[in-house]
């Protein structure tokens, strides 16, 4: 069956060649591509990490500026939000609108907390007395760590922010009275995206933060 | 549905024309020893690159003929000759895995033929042979001393010229790389701005100059090839050393090139002269960033190094005359000379032993002028026109913005290899270099505008000729 539209009109899930809905295939393709985005950013960071260690011959310890407790906390929060997301998807599949709403709300709040932590972290790093880490310098010396760090974590933050806005869109939509199980697939796509963003953070957190403490 | 289809027949005349044309094109490249030609290798490394290239050329010509011939045969043999035939339905064959597999294996084998010399070539390009590895040396027909006595040159690329530093001798020159023909030359490549690429086609291929990284290449010239000339009929003949590799230090190289050859000649008459160029796009004047390499016999090279070291040794620069000193015959001092102008001084050489207080003014007989008046005036202009802000003369130093001009009179080329270094060209260059090399930094660089004295030279015959005299007499 070729045309998604023709079938959806009859309020059926479109019959596709693979049986997977179009939007889910699209989402998976996008996530595959997004892997390469983060792959590039993470490898940039890893390549520069060693070079970053010294500036003007002095060894610089990036741990002086990191606040690992806060980041661990926000990591936990972000991972927990994935649970809410999964529950939201499950709820909409069952047609439980109230539960969907609450779970979406929970995801949004946790996502927002993560973003708030990141905003705090960025501001704190930039103005850390004696250890200022900016886009182009560390402790006032030209440095690459700030460049790779902010652009990598910033890109991830942007992903989270987009996800939060998307979820807010669903939350608002749930109050229009139009939301039904037929939207489950769309919410699921949103969920795929959200889980992906979480998984990326699971990679970023050890690579960018924990590794500074291990090696 | 209609079964009438249009039939276009085999385009015979067209094909014949095309392949005829390709053959003519191939055949007409008869002389290949152009100044910057990679097809005329004169060194070990470039010869290896050339050999692998020619191997690949023959492989591909073979493949092109085989596959192309096969294609032509198929097109001719299975062409539809009539409308009826064009409507026939041939057997609908979907493939033949045996043929396909055979062809895949065959192409893999052909690639192996190319892969082996490639890998050997990679090693040769990147590593100077170990002088203790006699087997390799024998294979490459090298003498142990050729490797052991290798010289090192640090090349620094700048927009848009080259700095050549010889760390073993502590000297710095620009745009012309003088090297001993019999010795390996290790080249360390660096850049202070963007990426450049050091391409010396007849000796060693190319290697990029990457910012923040030091790259390496090496080459060794082949004296026998340098000494082989080609006459008008294309036959090789042997040339004696003074003709093939005239000495640089006494200006013979420059004279030989200027005497034998017009700048516009396509083929090089002096074997020891090599052309090179920046091969990685580096900005507006990338095209103008060329250089030369001059091969020397060991003896001539040593002489050149000695002369250069003396010229760049600050301790050997003439000091100001001091009335407290005695001077021996031959000593050179600087002393004021009112005839040149107010506050001007010049070099004097003692023609006899001079005692305290006998300065060139009080005892003119004891001193002679080292240089002509124009030279001394030109030298003064070189400072007063702010040339020295960018060009170092008689001093080492990498930091200078422009090319080092030590012993400029021995150079064969001007403006990073762009033109012949003689009175006429230098005259033109000094008057308006922007006309010759549009966008060059001497004319357009930072801090140079219409008020800069350099830009006032255009109609100032006197100053220009004094500068020309000064620069070309630095030898």
């Amino acid at each position, binding site marked *: 069956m*070729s*045309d*998604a*539209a023709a079938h*959806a*009109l009859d309020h059926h899930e479109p019959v596709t*060649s693979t049986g997977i809905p*179009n939007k889910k*295939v*699209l989402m998976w*393709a*996008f996530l595959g591509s997004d892997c390469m*985005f983060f792959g*590039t*950013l993470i490898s940039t960071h890893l390549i520069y990490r060693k*070079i*970053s260690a010294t500036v003007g011959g002095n060894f610089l310890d990036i741990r002086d500026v990191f606040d690992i407790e806060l980041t661990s906390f926000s990591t936990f929060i972000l991972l927990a939000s994935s649970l809410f997301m999964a529950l939201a998807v499950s709820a909409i599949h069952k047609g439980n609108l109230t539960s969907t709403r609450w779970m979406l709300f929970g995801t949004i709040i946790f996502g927002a907390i993560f973003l708030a932590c990141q905003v705090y972290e960025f501001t704190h790093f930039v103005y850390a007395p004696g250890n200022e880490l900016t*886009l*182009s310098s560390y402790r006032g010396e030209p440095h*690459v760590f700030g*460049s790779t760090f902010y652009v990598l974590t910033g890109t991830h933050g942007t992903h989270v922010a987009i996800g939060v806005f998307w979820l807010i869109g669903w939350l608002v939509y749930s109050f229009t009275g139009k939301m039904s199980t037929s939207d489950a697939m*769309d919410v699921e796509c949103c969920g795929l995206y959200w889980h992906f963003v979480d998984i990326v953070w699971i990679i970023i957190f050890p690579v960018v933060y924990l590794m500074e403490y291990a090696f | *549905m209609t079964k009438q289809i*249009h039939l*276009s027949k085999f385009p015979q005349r067209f094909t014949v024309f095309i392949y005829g*044309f390709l053959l003519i094109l191939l055949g007409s490249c008869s002389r290949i020893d152009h*100044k910057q030609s990679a*097809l005329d290798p004169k060194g070990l490394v470039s010869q290896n*690159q050339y050999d692998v290239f020619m191997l*690949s*050329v023959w*492989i*591909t010509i073979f493949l092109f003929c085989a596959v192309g011939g096969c*294609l032509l045969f*198929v097109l001719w043999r*299975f062409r*539809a000759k009539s409308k009826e035939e064009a409507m*026939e339905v041939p057997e609908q064959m979907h493939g033949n895995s045996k043929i396909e597999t055979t062809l895949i294996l065959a192409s*893999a084998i052909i690639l192996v033929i190319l*892969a082996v010399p490639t890998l050997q070539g990679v090693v040769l*390009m990147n590593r100077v042979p170990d002088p203790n590895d006699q087997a390799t040396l024998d294979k490459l027909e090298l003498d142990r001393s050729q490797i052991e006595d290798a010289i090192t040159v640090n090349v620094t690329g700048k927009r848009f010229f080259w700095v050549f530093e010889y760390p073993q001798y502590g000297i710095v020159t620009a745009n012309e790389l003088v090297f001993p023909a019999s010795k390996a030359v290790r080249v360390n*490549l660096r850049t202070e701005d963007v*990426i450049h690429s050091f*391409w010396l*086609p007849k000796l060693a291929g*190319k290697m*990029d100059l990457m910012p*923040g*990284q030091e*790259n390496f290449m090496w080459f060794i010239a082949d004296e026998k090839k340098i000494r082989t000339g080609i006459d008008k009929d294309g036959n090789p003949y042997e040339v004696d050393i003074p003709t093939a590799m005239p000495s640089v230090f006494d200006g013979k190289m420059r004279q030989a090139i200027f005497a034998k050859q017009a*700048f516009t000649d396509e083929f090089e008459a002096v074997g020891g002269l090599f*052309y090179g160029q920046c091969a990685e*796009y580096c*900005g*507006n004047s*990338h*095209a103008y960033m060329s250089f030369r390499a001059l091969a020397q016999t060991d003896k001539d090279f040593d002489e050149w190094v000695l002369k250069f070291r003396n010229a760049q040794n600050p301790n050997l620069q003439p000091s100001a005359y001091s009335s407290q000193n005695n001077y021996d015959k031959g000593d050179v001092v600087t002393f004021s000379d009112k005839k040149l102008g107010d506050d001007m001084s010049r070099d004097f050489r003692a023609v006899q032993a001079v005692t305290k207080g006998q300065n060139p003014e009080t005892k003119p007989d004891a001193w002679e002028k080292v240089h002509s008046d124009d030279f001394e005036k030109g030298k003064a202009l070189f400072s007063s026109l702010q040339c020295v802000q960018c060009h170092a003369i008689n001093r080492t130093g990498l930091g200078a913005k422009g090319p080092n001009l030590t012993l400029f009179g021995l150079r064969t080329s001007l403006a990073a290899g*762009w033109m012949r270094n003689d009175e006429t060209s230098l005259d033109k260059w000094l008057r308006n270099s922007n006309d010759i090399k*549009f*966008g060059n930094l001497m004319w357009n660089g930072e801090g140079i505008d219409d008020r800069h004295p350099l830009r006032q030279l255009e109609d100032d015959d006197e100053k220009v000729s004094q500068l020309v005299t000064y620069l070309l007499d630095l030898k």
Partner: protein
Amino acid sequence: MAIESLKYASPDTETKIEAKVFPRPSQHTAGIVDWLTTIDHKKIGLMYGMAALFFLLVGGIEALLIRSQLWSHNMEVLTNREYNQMFTMHGTTMVFLVIMPLSAAFFNYLMPLQIGARDVAFPRMNALSLWCFVSGGIILNLSWFFTGGSPAIGWFGYAPLTDTRFAEVLGDMGPDFWIFSLQMLGLASLLASFNFITTIINMRAPGMTMMRMPVFTWMTLIVSFLIILAFPAITIALVELMFDRTYGTNFYDFLEGGKPHLWQHLFWIFGHPEVYILILPAMGIVSEVIPVFSRKPLFGYGLVIFSGAIIGFMGFAVWSHHMFTTGMGVVATSAFSILTMLIAIPTGVKIFNWIGTMWDGRIRFDTPMLFALGFITMFMIGGFTGIMHSSVPIDAQHQDSYFVVAHFHYVLIGGALFGLFCGFYFWLPKMTGRMLNEKLGKLVFTLMFIGFNLTFFPMHYLGMIGQPRRTHSYNEGHGFETWNQIATIGSFILGIGIAIGVYQFVSAFFNKRLKPAGKNPWDARTLEWTLSSPVKEYNFARNPIIKARDQAWENNYGPKENHSQKEPLDDHGVHMPDRSWYPLLTAIGLFVMVIGMLFHASIDASGELVRNYTVAIAGGVVSTVGIIMWSLEGPAGYHLFPKEKEE
């Protein structure tokens, strides 16, 4: 990333919601509004094609200026900076604004027809990628009018030449325009590729298994995967460059700890798959044309597809062969050298299979076939010189010389462009319903073939005798003059050939005197040839049920059980989604955002840097609103009731 939200209410309620903001163009919309709001893959394909042909002429004029400057030594047709801008713009235009969108045009127009679909999976997203491509093209060419003019950095913009530190004109904006236009074009390609992948995987007609798909569709799928995996690398590289230039980060600033080498790696990790993104569609086209004009199925169908996939896969493992002279060390260069040689094998396989296809055929030499044969021979030469470059010692001489210029023009003109012209001559009868003039077509081929070889064959020799690429001038005494003059003459012949060709393509849509084409003028093999020419709005009145690989051919010549069948007509008729303004609005929003980013920084009276994001944010808001409205409006639609025979 915008995700199309397909929400379905009944069509009539849908239109009511939207009436207030942007009235949705009705079913019978015509003229400019139709073209601006269309979501029909065929119209989008045509617009891709027309825009790309326009840029082909622009890039061609740039090329002719370059060739004029090189006519003889020390020419002054262009200044050095103008010349450098020309070759940068020529390269960028030809790669991103000509070959890629021309391929996209064919993907758009043909792929749904070849798999038996009524449209792509996300029609409005398809429109968005078209408009992103158009605005990317505009942004790139706007650069001529602002500080510093167009970029003069070469099409691969090697760091650190792109760093503001080394700008040769104060406040040079060229590279910024270049960065942002590439980002827009990348977005366009990514969106289109997600769409194509979904369409091919999910929207095949019943019976259209993967191994029954036409080769061109297979190549579309492979290229789409290459795009979604390769473009992120350059997107991130460009983001990093943009941060370097705008916010002073140090990614590529070697004086502050960055590494210019990184740019080259990131660029070529994208750049080499890009080469295959450019050539595989042309290979797909040729693989369709040769069987038709030999009246035989493609020899070794599976192997051709498999080798296409292998080429795509290995394309990610050979990027460093562009960097043999950057000092990567013995091991890395050797490894990449061998891998590069290996990639020649699947490429050779394709050539063997094309010849195998012709074997025992009944070969006709119509214009599409001539272009296909031109493709094979020219691409063969380009491939052979490519093998030479895979050998490091050879590359040490060839790199950045005119030999390389000759090589990639043999691949990109002799290969990609010939293949795409082949596609035009082959499929324009299907698109316009008219046969092109065969004589004029052969004239175009002759001019292009001769002009092309005259231009680029001598460049091999020029490179070998020492002419470096990207030099605006050369000195006398190198022996470059004669061959450059031959090349320049050739380039004008090539230019005339291309211009006539483009004229012929465009006029085919308007010239009523041309012969009508009928459904299947070439007696061709694939599914699209079962449809009327030009193809109806709804493509297939009834969904076809596919029974064999070359369905059109099997319907005519195959056994009865291989004839395709059709699903019964639906009571609802054919549902057609409505046109929409929102893709265009979203693209305009992105365009404004980019313009806002380009001009956000200024220096105030006191010499302080002032950043003003008002315009950029406004653009962002517009495109966000566009996306939201887009997801709210849904596809909506109307119904058509074609007769049995009307397709």
